C-alpha cells in the first residue's frame, strides 16, 4: 500500500484546518478506492512525505530544506501547495493530483 508520512507544524496560528484537511484527503482516497496509508510516526519509512504547515511561513520547510526526492516531499503551507496559491477548499483535490503524479513518477498508481 502506498504510504504517506504526515508531518504537522506546531499549529500556533493556522490559516487552514490542518487535521480537517487530512480527514478530507483520507475520505477522498477512500471514496475513490485508492489504497493509501497515512503515517505520523516519523521513524517509519514512507513512500512520500506530506508537510502540513498551517500558514505560508511554512515552519516545516526549515526542517526539510532540500526537498529531497527520496522520499518525495509535498508541502502545504496555509493556502499554498508547493509554490501555488490554492484556496483551502481546493487543497485536498490538488493534493490528490500531486500525490498521484509523484506515485506515477516512480511507477504504478496509488
Amino acid at each position, binding site marked *: 500500500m502506498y504510504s504517506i508520512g504526515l508531518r504537522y507544524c506546531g499549529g500556533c*496560528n*493556522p*490559516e487552514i*484546518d490542518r487535521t480537517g484537511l487530512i480527514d478530507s484527503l483520507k475520505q477522498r482516497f477512500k471514496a475513490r478506492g485508492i489504497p493509501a496509508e497515512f503515517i505520523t510516526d516519523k521513524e517509519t519509512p514512507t513512500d512520500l512525505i506530506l508537510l502540513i504547515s498551517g*500558514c*505560508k*511561513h*511554512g515552519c516545516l520547510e526549515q526542517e526539510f530544506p532540500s526537498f529531497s526526492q527520496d522520499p518525495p516531499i509535498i508541502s502545504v*503551507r*496555509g493556502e*499554498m501547495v508547493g*509554490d*501555488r*496559491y490554492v484556496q483551502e477548499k481546493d487543497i485536498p483535490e490538488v493534493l490528490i493530483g500531486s500525490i498521484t503524479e509523484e506515485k506515477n513518477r516512480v511507477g504504478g498508481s496509488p
Partner: protein
Amino acid sequence: MSMMTGKEYIESLRGLNPEVYFFGQKINNVVDEPMFQPHIHTAAMTYELAHRPEYEDIMTATSHLTGEKINRFTHIHQGIDDLVKKARMMRLLGQKTGTCFQRCVGLDGLNAIYVTTYDMDQKYGTDYHERFKTWLTEVQKKDLMPSGAMTDARGDRNLRPHQQKNKDTYLHIKERLDHGIIVSGIKAHITGAINSHEILTMPTRTMGEEDGDFALSFAIPSNAKGVTFVFSRQTNDTRRLDSPLDAGNPKYGIVGGEAIIIFKDVFVPNERIFMAGEYDFTTELVETFAGYHRSNYGGCKVGLADVVVGGSYWTADAHGISKASHIIDKLTDMIAMAETCWSCTLACSYEGYQTPSGAYHINPLLANVVKLNITKMVYEWMRLAQDIAGGKIITLPSEKDLENPELGRIIEECFVGKEGFSTSDIIKMLRLIENMSVGAGLPEAMHGAGSPAAQKIMIARRSGIDRKVDLAKSVAGITEDKDFEQITGKDEKTYWQESKKKIQEKMPGSVNSSAF
C-alpha cells in the same frame, strides 16, 4: 556603474533636469535649490551608508539576478534574513536622519511588482515578469532610485475610476499603440519624487473590469517628456531660507519631500510596462505593496523615536531634571512604545513567506498591525517628547535675534541651562524636537502607507475570525473538545455528570444547572 556614494547620487541628479515647480516657479536646478536640499541629503544617506563597513551587512545585498553586490534598496528579498535586514536598515536610517529617507517606497514597489508580475504571467502567459527583471537589472547595476508612485488624486471617492468626471484623477491608459501606451493622470503625495531617477507606478486600489485602463504599472525616467512635478510644502519649510537653526533639522528636513506628479500624454514603451489592463491582479499588487510598506514603519519611525528619546533625555538633563521620576517615567513609556512597534516589525519579517515568484513577503496581518500601532503610538511618544521639552519648543526666538549682539546676550541668559550645556546647543535640540513632534511627521505617520481604516480592513480580513469563534466555542463547552476528552478520559457529558454527582455528594443541593 557600481553602488553610488551619497555624493555620487547627488551628482547623478544633475543630469536629469526634471520639470519641477515650487512656489509657482519652475525650478531649473533641483540639486542646489535650498528648499529641496535637506530631502536630497536624506536620500543620499541611503547611498552613503552602503559604503561603510560598519553598516554594509544590512545596507547591501547580493543580487539574485547578477550575483553582484548591490544596495539593499534595489534588492528583491530572497529569504527571511533579507526581510529582517530590511527592517534593521529602516531603523538605522531613521536614526541617522531623524526623518523620512524616501527610498523605501521604490524598494517596496520593486518587490511587489516582482511578485505580482510573476503571478500574472502564470495566468495569462504574458512576459511582464521578464520585462520587469530586465528593467530591475538596470536599476541594480546603476543603483537607481525609483520613486514608488501609487496614490492617485482619486477625485470623488464614492465613484470608481472609470466613473470619474475627470479621468485624470487616476493615472490611466489614453491610447494603446503597437510599441507602447500613452498615459495621462495625476499621482499625489509621491515621496522623494523630484530627486528620484525613475518613477515606478502602481494602481492605487482594486480595479474592476470597467477600470481596465486604470489597472496600470510601468516605469519611466523622471525626466520623461510630459511629466511635471509640483513639490509639496511641509511645516515651517521656509525657515530653511531664514536660518539653519530655526529649521529644526536643517540637514535632513521633515517628511519625505512629497510631490504631485502630473502625467500628460506620456509615452511608455512596451518594455517598461508591467501591467496594462489586468484588473484582476490589482488587489494582489496593492496588498503586496501595502504589506511591505506598512511593515517598514516599525523600523523607520522607531529610528526617529530613538532620536527623539535621546533628544528628550538630553533636554531634561540640560535643564537639570533628567533624574526626576516623572521624566524617567515618560522616557520609559516612549521607549516601550517604540520597542513594541519594533517587535511588530521584526515579527512580521520573521513570519514572512516565500511567494511563487521566489521572492519573500512579510506576514501581511502583522504588517498591518505594525502600521496601525504607528498611527497611534507616534503621536503618543511625540506628545511625551513635547511634555518633557516644555513650552520653549514653540516660543523660541529666531536665530537672527540670537545673532543681534544686545538681544543675543539677553536671550542667551534667558535660555541658559545647567553648567556644561550651551544655550546654543539647547536651542538646537529644542528646534529638533519641535521639528519632529509638532510638524508634518505626525500626519505622515498616520496616513503614509495608508490610513488607519485601510489597516483595519486588512486586519479584519486576515485575522481568521471564524477560527477564533471555533476556539471560543470549544473552550466554552459549546462544541466538542477532543483534547479535554483525552485529558479526562471520557466525553464531556459524562465528565460533567460525574462532576455534578461528586459536588452533590459533598454539598447536597448545590448544583442544579443542566447547561453542561
